[in-house]
């Protein structure tokens, strides 16, 4: 099986986000960056499928040179190859643009892919657009927000999370699958893996090499502004015995907040 996993570099979920003066982007200075946590489940699933069925796992990121760090991590986890598609732009918050780059990369560089794996969404832009858009551009079926995946020959079955239930989706390969927490428990890199990853060369592919025109990579989304959420004020601390405090809380929820 030829599996390609798409990963993105995002700010650590423990970090505070600040916005620049122009209110057009976040301040990257002082932030630490990680592979988007949902993408780790995708990498792990690819490695497990390869271990069970054989094949090749290639990890790809669309981003700046700084994304090489997360690609190295994926190699250290056990991926066979990694490729960076160099994006001259930083975060555009535009899913279609990224999906077009990915669809073209699959056509030109990975035409014999059986499975494209993604995280359900990049923790950051939170669009949850790219997997479905890439699937449509390539004419592949999709299964998103997947917590169980089985591949049997040319057929796949996935359980995907919906509100209060699970959808069982059946599809033919090649296909797009996006991973959700619960699919698996991602492995740690081994020391041997880290050493091997250090020696690996990660090829860098440009938009020009993929034959992407400026029109195709022009964002459809125009950032008007970024802003901080309205600050919440600390409210009332209700004193008294647990019984008194509980009764007072219910009274406030009913008469003041009017939410019950």
């Amino acid at each position, binding site marked *: 099986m030829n599996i390609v996993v798409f990963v993105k570099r995002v700010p650590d979920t423990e970090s505070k986000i600040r916005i620049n003066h122009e209110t057009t982007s976040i301040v990257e200075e002082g932030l630490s960056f990680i592979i988007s946590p949902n993408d780790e489940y995708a990498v792990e699933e690819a490695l497990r499928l390869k271990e069970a069925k054989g094949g090749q796992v290639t990890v790809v990121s669309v981003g700046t040179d700084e994304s090489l760090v997360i690609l190295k991590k994926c190699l250290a986890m056990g991926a066979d190859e990694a490729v960076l598609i160099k994006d001259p732009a930083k975060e555009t918050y535009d899913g279609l643009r990224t999906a077009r780059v990915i669809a073209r990369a699959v056509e030109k560089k990975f035409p014999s892919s059986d499975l494209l794996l993604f995280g359900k969404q990049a923790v950051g832009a*939170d669009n949850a657009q790219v997997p479905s858009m890439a699937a449509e551009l390539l004419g592949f079926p999709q299964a998103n927000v997947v917590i169980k995946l089985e591949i049997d020959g040319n057929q796949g079955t996935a359980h995907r*999370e919906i*509100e209060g239930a699970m959808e069982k989706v059946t599809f033919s390969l090649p296909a797009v699958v996006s991973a959700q927490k*619960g699919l698996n428990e991602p492995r740690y890199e081994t020391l041997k893996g880290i050493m091997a990853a250090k020696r690996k060369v990660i090829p860098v592919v440009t938009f020009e090499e993929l034959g992407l025109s400026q029109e195709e990579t022009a964002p459809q989304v*125009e950032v008007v502004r*970024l802003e901080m959420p309205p600050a919440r004020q600390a409210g009332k*601390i209700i004193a008294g015995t647990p019984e008194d405090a509980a009764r007072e809380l219910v009274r406030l929820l009913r008469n003041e907040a009017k939410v019950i």
Partner: protein
Amino acid sequence: MFLVFIETREGKIKKSSLEVLSEAQRRGGELGEDVAAALCGSNMDCLNPEIFSYGASKVFLLENDQLGAYSSQGYATALHQLAQELHPKAIFFAATAMGKDLAPRLAARLGVGLASDCTGIAVKDGTMEFTRPIYAGKAFLSLSLKSSPQLATLRPNVFPLVEPRNKAGEVVKKDVAIPESRIKGLVADILREKGEEMDVTEADVIVSGGRGMKGPENFALLKELSAVIPRSTVGASRSAVDSGWIGHQSQVGQTGKTVSPNLYMAFGISGAIQHLAGMSSSKFIVAVNKDPDAPIFKVADYGIVGDLFQVIPPLKEALKKALAE
């Protein structure tokens, strides 16, 4: 014209679709656009009166045997055909599991941008500005779309419902052509766990537990508390989920789900930054925690500093009494 995709589950319209219809009506009113609704499947006529009462003047029923089971490819093909015919100014979806699966597929087919999971739409100089949380709500992005039609998914539980009115409209049935080869994946079955629970993204009230719950068995206390409150469900922090105390589908926060209920009650949750990001757009927040310095108190409207195990039983009784009145 604004087109609203209406999602049904088990023959019923989802509340979040009615919220989208309501918002489309408000913004359509500002921009002088009529609201039409689109449904995929068959035997949907009984739903028309409800759709009209929430402001649609037309309903398009997209009928095809292949649309009986949901498939992103089938539904996107059907909506694409309708969009090519109607040229709507905008197409709106609820940001539900289905809406998030379908809208990007349609956007790519149309070659247009998509505003995902919006919590606000403003009309400025005759165009729409969409506001959406990014970094799970640590920041907000306002954007405009350069392409037409404008596609957006709207977060459930955020946009208020309009008052339903008794009103008629036009029903248009469309046979859509979907080549069999187009559908390469579909929903074969819907699996429910026993004791079907409301999803945290749809609940009006979330009763949430963290490390302070001390163990999986104590989540039963939260389930009992939730059972007293209508339209409520149990949520959890990452540490409770990672400890295996409760399933990951209940996780609230940046690596779980971002929620906006009317009331979020946090028991034994200290308030890590990634958790606060996922729940601080709740309308009201209650925190119960032993530690008076826990960061959760900085965002809570009401706080009780104390032992949650002593607070939950009288709270349940007081709620039961108040709700029975």
